[in-house]
């Protein structure tokens, strides 16, 4: 079952990186959407939510075209830094991060919109700068909602398959995530391996759910 553990390790690595990227980007963008009014704001919001509704293979195709060696982004990356993203675990991270981003962004925006601006105003009048207000008041009051979205994002990233399949290249240890390993095993008639992988994936997901339940702390008396 060696290939199974390698695939699991890779899936976790890819999902964790993708979620970390989405957390930072999603919170920043969610905050901007919640607090600033600008023309075309709802249009931007809709575009950012697209990966949630686009078929994963469509996303995979876009990635291939844009990030591939001949694409405008991929070509530039290769010319400037010699980096190629297709067929690498970083490419898998990119695919997973894109499909999971809307989960964090949407929940972050909603969480921030639920924080009364008065708290932020009170903090400002008391002398705090924008960064301090964000970290001491806004974020502590919004983190639960953000966390919920982040866990969903992690689950989505862990299960990402369609887009990754198109740009991955099925390389064990580098791009053959659990989902792709299951697919390949089934295609090859390796039922025993497929069964093992499926059990492993299910166990991992259950563990993530349990951990998520633990992370949401019990109500402390006096807390809101």
């Amino acid at each position, binding site marked *: 079952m060696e290939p199974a553990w390698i695939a699991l390790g890779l899936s976790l690595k890819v999902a964790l990186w993708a979620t970390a990227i989405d957390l930072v980007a999603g919170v920043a963008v969610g905050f901007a959407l919640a607090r600033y009014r600008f023309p075309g704001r709802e249009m931007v919001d809709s575009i950012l939510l697209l990966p949630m509704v686009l078929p994963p293979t469509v996303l995979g195709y876009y990635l291939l075209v844009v990030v591939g060696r001949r694409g405008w982004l991929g070509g530039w990356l290769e010319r400037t830094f010699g980096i190629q993203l297709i*067929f690498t675990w970083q490419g898998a991270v990119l695919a997973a991060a894109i499909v999971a981003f809307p989960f964090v962004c949407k929940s972050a925006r909603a969480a921030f919109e639920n924080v009364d601006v008065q708290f932020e105003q009170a903090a400002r009048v008391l002398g705090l700068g924008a960064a301090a207000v964000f970290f001491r008041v806004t974020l502590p009051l919004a983190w639960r909602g953000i966390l919920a979205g982040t866990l969903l994002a992690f689950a989505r990233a862990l299960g990402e398959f369609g887009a990754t399949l198109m740009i991955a290249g*099925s*390389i064990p240890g580098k791009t053959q995530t659990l989902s792709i390993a299951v697919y*390949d095993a089934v*295609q090859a*008639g390796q039922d025993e391996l497929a069964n093992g992988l499926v059990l492993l994936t299910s166990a991992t997901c259950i563990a993530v759910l349990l951990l998520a339940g633990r992370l949401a702390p019990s109500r402390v008396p006096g807390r809101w």
Partner: protein
Amino acid sequence: MHVGVLSSRRMASVALAFVLAFASPVVFAAELTISAAASLGDAFRDIGRAFESAHPDTKVQLNFAASGALLQQIAKGAPVDVFASADEETMDRAEQQKLIRHGSRVDFAANALVVVVPRDAASSPKTLADLAATSIRRIAIGLPASVPAGRYARFALDKAKLWPAIEAKVIGAQSVRQGLDYVARGEVDAGFVYATDAALEVDKVRVAFVVPTDPPVRYPIAIVEGSGNLAAARGFVAFVASLAGQDTMARYGFGKP
């Protein structure tokens, strides 16, 4: 008596309409489902159309994927009538699993395995050994476990004792067509595909050299056990082996079996 929008009559009609739409009505024409290896795509589409013209009461449904994937579908009970694979090994497995009708198997085409490079590549490898050069950084090969072209490639490389040297550069493709696409896009420096596939993307790839394969690349076709339309299935297999069928195969670059 007031008949509202939600009258029981209306609802019954709506419900009936749903059921009829969902449970598609029985097709008047007989349906024939053909699962064929990815590389047979264009040739079999033509053959399918020609067969339908000759047999107006039959509708041909084509299903293309890597031969290994198709075998799994049939093994798990997919309602397929005819199976055409890109190598004998997959058909052997089908026979072992008692999935095809005894005696219906026949070879109908041959192909060549080639190495292709992107059309604008600076240099071309001339032999298998050249693939070990540092200028070739990535090579697309179909996953050997499910893609015959990949198996042929792996076999050839093993025979030439070159597999260890290039293993690190291999990008596994889900089918020979995906491998071809990778080369066409320039994502890989070389790829193992069939000569017939290379001919499809002449403007994006060029053939570097032909890979001697042993056994030679031969395509078998057979009737699937449990087919619901035996007569039409037999007719289709016969059509593929006929002059008309062989003509079409030749047009796409396939050799005689």
